[in-house]
């Protein structure tokens, strides 16, 4: 029996761990300050006789990691190859949490978005047009209030549709300034040989080869089994990269 791996990602304090507990049972401690989910916590649940493995990632504001903890989240999203990424947004701080969701949708296409804390947003007088958001993002969007267990069934259903039934989505891609789009267009043909690797979004790869520090480029090579020869050229010149692709 193969499990569907679901990565749970989101900003700190959006109720990720509460959602994790609500979905998997009482196995994980939630405190709302950084550091409490330092390592990945895992739990499982089943839906329609399918088993799901839920991986609770440390909270992060962006995939441009700054601390060891944020790196854990980034690396799992970029290289961990989960079957689905459940991006948890904060209904009271939608814009800030969309920053992360858009970056996640740039990496992977199997994304389900959950707008949590809908109850608190309502208390603050904020209303969110969920169907408009789903249309705009191009992925399933589920409103939820994990503390009062609202939306759990719908989340499971969406995870099932994406992760098990394989419903495909076409996530919205971030539009960059003209100069950046031009650079991406120039680089993409050179990545054509990677087409056999479906997990990696070529646009994302092109961008990261452009803007990442050498350490992260080396990591890309490591995770997708690219061999970077010679390694020293990265440190020396930080430009010409030769990869051999198995």
């Amino acid at each position, binding site marked *: 029996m193969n499990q569907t791996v679901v990565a749970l990602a989101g900003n*700190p*304090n959006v109720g990720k761990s509460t959602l994790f*507990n609500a979905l998997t049972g*009482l196995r994980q*401690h*939630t*405190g*709302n*300050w*950084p*550091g*409490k989910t*330092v390592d990945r916590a895992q739990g499982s649940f089943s839906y329609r006789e399918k088993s799901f493995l839920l991986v609770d990632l440390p909270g992060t504001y*962006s995939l441009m990691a*700054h*601390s*060891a*903890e944020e790196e*854990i989240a980034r690396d799992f999203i970029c290289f961990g190859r989960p079957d689905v990424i459940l991006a948890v947004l904060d209904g009271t701080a*939608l*814009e*800030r949490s969309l*920053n992360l*969701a*858009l970056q996640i949708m740039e990496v992977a296409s199997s994304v389900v978005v959950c707008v949590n804390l809908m109850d608190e947003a309502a208390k*603050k*007088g*904020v*209303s*969110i*047009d*969920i169907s*408009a*958001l789903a249309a*705009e993002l191009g992925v399933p969007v589920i409103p939820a209030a994990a*503390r009062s267990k609202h939306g759990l069934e719908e989340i499971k259903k969406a995870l099932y549709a994406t992760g098990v039934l394989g419903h495909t989505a076409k996530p919205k891609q*971030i*539009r*960059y*300034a003209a*100069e*950046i789009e031009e*650079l991406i267009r*120039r*680089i993409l043909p050179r*990545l054509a*040989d990677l087409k*056999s690797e479906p997990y990696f979004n070529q646009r994302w790869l092109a*961008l990261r*080869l*452009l*803007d990442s520090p050498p350490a992260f480029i080396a990591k890309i090579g490591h995770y997708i089994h690219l061999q970077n020869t010679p390694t020293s050229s990265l440190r020396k010149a930080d*430009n*010409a*990269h*030769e*990869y*051999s*692709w*198995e």
Partner: protein
Amino acid sequence: MIRLYVDLADERSACASWISDRVVGDIFSNAQTTARQVLQQSSAPEDSWQNKLDRLVTSRRFGYPFMFLLLIGIFWLTISGSNVPSTLLAQGLFALEDWLRGCFLALGSPAWLHGLLISGVYHTLAWVVSVMLPPMAIFFPLFTYLEDLGYLPRVAFNLDHLFQKANACGKQCLTMCMGFGCNAAGVVSTRIIHSPRERLIAILTNNFVPCNGRFPTLIAIATIFTTGGAYLAYQQAAVAAAIAGVIFIGLGFTFLISWGLAKTVLQGESSSLVLELPPYRRPQFWPVLYRSLIDRTLFVLRRAVFIAAPAGAIIWLLSNCYWGDANLITHAAAFLDPFARFFGLDGFILMAFILGLPANEIVIPILLMSYLSSASLQDIQSLAQLRGVLLANGWTWLTAVNVLLFSLLHWPCSTTLLSIYKETGSLKWTLLAFALPSATAFSMCLLVTQVARLLGL
């Protein structure tokens, strides 16, 4: 095998100066556009009670007093609440010990067998359980409620400028909170600190926060030497204040050592940090209670029991193997004694701390067993009796103060050292993490002892 050659030298150098900022800027503006399309503010948000509360608990005037009172309050609840269950547990477990010994005798077991199993293993276990369980079962849920409520980030906010002054990171405070539970967990939690320099400072000083393994020791010693083991309401408050005082001494050393490290081996500027003050949320009563009891209390207790059982056997063997006219414990203690006396401790105390390296929980049981092995063996069911044993072995208030200080400041337990080695990947830093607190503990005890003796106290 496909070989892919990507030469992006021109592109990278063409955009190197602006690409990162532009990419981040574009992500933000995309998010903003999307958010504006779906958001509607139906009513103006008012100045909530949360904001008012935040202004109070993080204010210059009330922030610190509120924090101190809260901490003392928690200790008071822990101490007063654990008194009765501790005594009951001890009475029950030691009554069971007599019964078990009776069973062994009735079955005709040899003296060494029931000595090893009952007087050694069981006796130590009973001590660890009755002394540790009640305070932990009260302290952990209370602390977890504070966490879930969202108060801890406010503490970090309050303390941030002090850490800035010590050239360390404000997030260090959160790793210290973790250290109250377990220093090994505290060390692992330093991963939230971005700068490697500040992270090392946080790792090296985490030990100055007393973990739950040391709490029962601190509580027991502080109680018997503050109140003589009696329990009146104001005396409990005095004990709570004494414990809070010990914590603040630890806090003081954290700042002092952090500052010293930042001035010497780990020089550098303090990095800025963005600390979000999450909204206050009503803690979920039952889940928090369940999790703090199962995940923390029982987990820690199980670890202590696993270490205490073999330790109990070893101590019993040491105290019942004679070489010449005294048992091995007495020999070892006599060997350490002159050195320990110089620092205001005694040989038995120092040996208990050394043997307690695997877990701080077993320091007091080891100490008692070794004291009692050279005197008449008796059951200790109350703190008043414990006080009697300690006084009979020459303890004064000065010894008690030194033991409190030594327990607070001495070397980390082996689990923590292992975590430090794993996190830093360096034997050098691990050794420093051992040497630095040890040197601090010995010098503090020496200072206190010499000053007290000089003043003729």
